[in-house]
């Protein structure tokens, strides 16, 4: 069964460092998303991406964040200068169409900023 895969599963980084989280969405999907979940809190939307551009982004997705689909298969989230409060599970998701279609989530990357 097709699935969304994310790497790494766990990343520890020092405050102020850049991190890149990687995702391979389901191959025939056209819409891609990043969500995050701080421990014990809700799953929060960060950004959606379609046709090589951002469709929508939340207030969380400030200038420190960027997304890219460099090679037609990978979908990356970059955090330029990590802060302690960026520590969270980051989930990539993809859907065949949008809006309000079924989104399939990856297993997540646990980011720990120390």
């Amino acid at each position, binding site marked *: 069964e097709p699935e*969304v895969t994310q790497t790494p599963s766990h990343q520890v980084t020092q405050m102020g460092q850049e991190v890149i989280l990687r995702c391979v969405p389901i191959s025939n999907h056209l*819409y891609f*998303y990043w*969500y995050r979940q701080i421990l014990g*809190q*809700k*799953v*929060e*939307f960060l950004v*959606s991406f*379609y046709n090589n551009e951002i*469709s*929508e982004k*939340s207030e969380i997705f400030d200038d420190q964040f960027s997304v890219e689909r460099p090679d037609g298969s990978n979908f990356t989230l970059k955090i330029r200068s990590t802060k302690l409060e960026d520590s969270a*599970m980051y*989930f990539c*998701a993809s859907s065949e169409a*949008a*809006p*309000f*279609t*079924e*989104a*399939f*989530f*990856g*297993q*997540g990357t*646990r980011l720990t900023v120390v």
Partner: protein
Amino acid sequence: TQLLEQSPQFLSIQEGENLTVYCNSSSVFSSLQWYRQEPGEGPVLLVTVVTGGEVKKLKRLTFQFGDARKDSSLHITAAQPGDTGLYLCAVSASNDYKLSFGAGTTVTVRA
């Protein structure tokens, strides 16, 4: 932003019992999805409901979408320990490219 209220926050039951969890909002939804999430993993889609009054069944799970498309319920019959997890509802508006999640109901089924 659509505010989703999920209740109860926690639910602990014995194997074999039934349970119902709820997802409510003051807004009308274009569609609603139920996910199940286990610790340290991503949400796994269970079902999507789009029509007011719709009822969908997935083995022992029954999902209902309210007539006014503002609320939904998930009923589990004869719960098993494998049903343990965080049950999340999520919605999107007709012009949205995002899902808004509720805080979830943590279900624990004791053997």
